[in-house]
């Protein structure tokens, strides 16, 4: 019974982790059709922002939930204005440019912080479930991931801002004719996507630690999740994270973490062979 409870929590926290690292990418890709290969580095920067802020005496929750997304959101907007906006509609070129950006960030952070692992202690300690003990912070992460998805849903569906954003992505010329400035909406959207990545990076920093090349560990999984999810930002990310998170965690539990990761990739390749447009290309069409 305890074992079952632990297993469920492990799977849920795997799903939450995948959803967290993917959602920023999903917003940028789903709304703007920009493949952001610097996504892993946005996560990394979020982690560093949270750690540096905490070490300077900022409350850890503020550091993770406010400082990290703010810093990375601003960086994202600058990147959009300086580089990405020249490349809209040229998908391959944006992909390459964001890769260049990713190398640039890795190099920059290595120069500043060195190559050693930085970390902060996970807050909240642990709680016992039967014979097992589990970190409360992991449970919090599950709740936070769910909350983030819910907030994004509400913003996109129910607010004027979300309506403008969706409209602009659908038809920029029409939006411009109605008095919206598409470049500003693009910059905002990219900034929000980056901020979400920074938030995820900050939240994951206590669990995994941060080093300049940590982005590489996240970016593959995030991309697999978003692509397998398909066009719907939220439903797709949630469905794919649910599927791959379960596969990964169960395989990890019964074998090793490495086989868990390989299993995740194999599941994704098989899924894309069957459903080339991702999960939401077939089911949940028209959802958000």
């Amino acid at each position, binding site marked *: 019974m305890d074992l079952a409870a632990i297993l469920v929590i492990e799977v849920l926290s795997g799903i939450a982790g995948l959803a967290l690292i993917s959602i920023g990418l999903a917003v940028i890709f789903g709304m703007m059709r920009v493949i952001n290969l610097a996504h892993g580095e946005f996560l990394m920067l979020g982690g560093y922002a949270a750690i540096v802020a905490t070490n300077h005496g900022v409350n850890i929750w503020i550091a993770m939930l406010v400082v990290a997304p703010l810093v990375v959101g601003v960086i994202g907007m600058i990147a959009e204005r300086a580089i990405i906006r020249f490349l809209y509609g040229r998908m391959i070129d944006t992909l390459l440019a964001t890769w260049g950006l990713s*190398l640039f960030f890795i190099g920059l952070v290595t120069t500043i912080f060195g190559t050693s692992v930085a970390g902060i202690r996970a807050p909240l300690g642990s709680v016992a479930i039967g014979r097992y003990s589990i970190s409360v912070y992991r449970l919090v992460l599950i709740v936070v991931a769910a909350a983030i998805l819910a907030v994004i849903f509400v913003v996109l569906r129910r607010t004027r801002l979300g309506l403008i954003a969706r409209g602009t992505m659908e038809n920029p010329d029409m939006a411009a004719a109605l008095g919206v400035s598409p470049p500003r909406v693009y910059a905002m959207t990219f900034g929000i996507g980056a901020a979400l990545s920074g938030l995820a990076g900050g939240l994951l920093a206590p669990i995994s630690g941060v080093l300049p090349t940590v982005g590489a560990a996240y970016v593959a999984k995030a991309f697999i999740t978003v692509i397998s999810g398909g066009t719907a930002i939220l439903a797709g990310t949630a469905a794919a994270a649910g599927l791959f998170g379960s596969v990964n965690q169960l395989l990890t539990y019964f074998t090793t973490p490495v086989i868990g990761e390989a299993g995740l990739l194999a599941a994704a390749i098989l899924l894309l062979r069957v459903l*080339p447009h991702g999960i939401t290309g077939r089911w949940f069409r028209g959802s958000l």
Partner: protein
Amino acid sequence: MIRRLPHPGIAATTAAMVAVALAVPRVVDEFELLQLTVFAALCILALSLGVVWGYGGILCFGQSAFFGLGAYAYAVTAINLGESTGAVVLAVVVPALFAASLGYFMFYGRLSDVYLGVITLSVTLIFFNLMNSTAGDAYRIGKARLNGFNGMPSLPTLNLPGDPGRVLDPTEMFYLVMALLVIVYLGLHALMASHFGRVVIAIRENETRCELLGYDVRLHKLLIFTLGGGIAGLAGCLFANWGAFVSPTVFSLAMTSQIIIWVIVGGLGTLLGPIIGCLIMQYLTTMFGTQQIANTNLIFGVIFLVFVLLVPRGLVPTLARLGARAFGPPRARDVT
């Protein structure tokens, strides 16, 4: 009909490579010879992506996966057999087969360009993680211990086929690598001039039209991808031989990005471009590496961005165009 690269260019490049191969061992010391050997091996790797991406239009971020797979296949087989001939064959065949099976899923699943890039990138990163975690006695293939992130040291290097006692010395190794580079370069040019090559280029230009004309787009893409995988594996085998060492860094993100940068800097749609790009970037890497001016990733990132934003066609096509403008008749302007 417009030829992509005129024959005099190919002949001149080949002559230059042969001249370098013959002259260099007489002029430089052993350290520089080893440096040039690895440059030449990496040029082969650059060619492999040059053909897959530049001619096939398949953006593969996973060329280093095939490169690394070739290196590891060579290492494991050479240790087990104590002889290099079979190992070299496997170092080409294993990555080619892997490329074929990966390509089957991607091309027959009709994934678009961008997804291909992401999938191949993910495969590479997962290889990197897998290999890094194979430390310890449990992970061995026959006599060969994989050793995780420490890599596999003191590999048996190339010997004359069938004679394990007769190991190639550095000069012979250099000749061999240069010879292979010339063979791959000329072979790819010949292939691209053939019917198959023309169809591949046509698919790059307009996939739908080719399909409607009755060509099997998926098969052609799969074949060119597999060929690229095999060539990258060959480069990996040579790379493993060069240091008698292989470690998971062959799969790393840095390795993958290097290959892409070589092709971007040199120029897409040429075979000379990737070679030139590889030489320039390797020279810069060695220079920055020894002088510690700035982090290599930082420099690479900036070069990457500059080329994508400002020189998207790469050096060789851009220079060829400028040359044609300056010296050629007005008609030659748009021929690159």
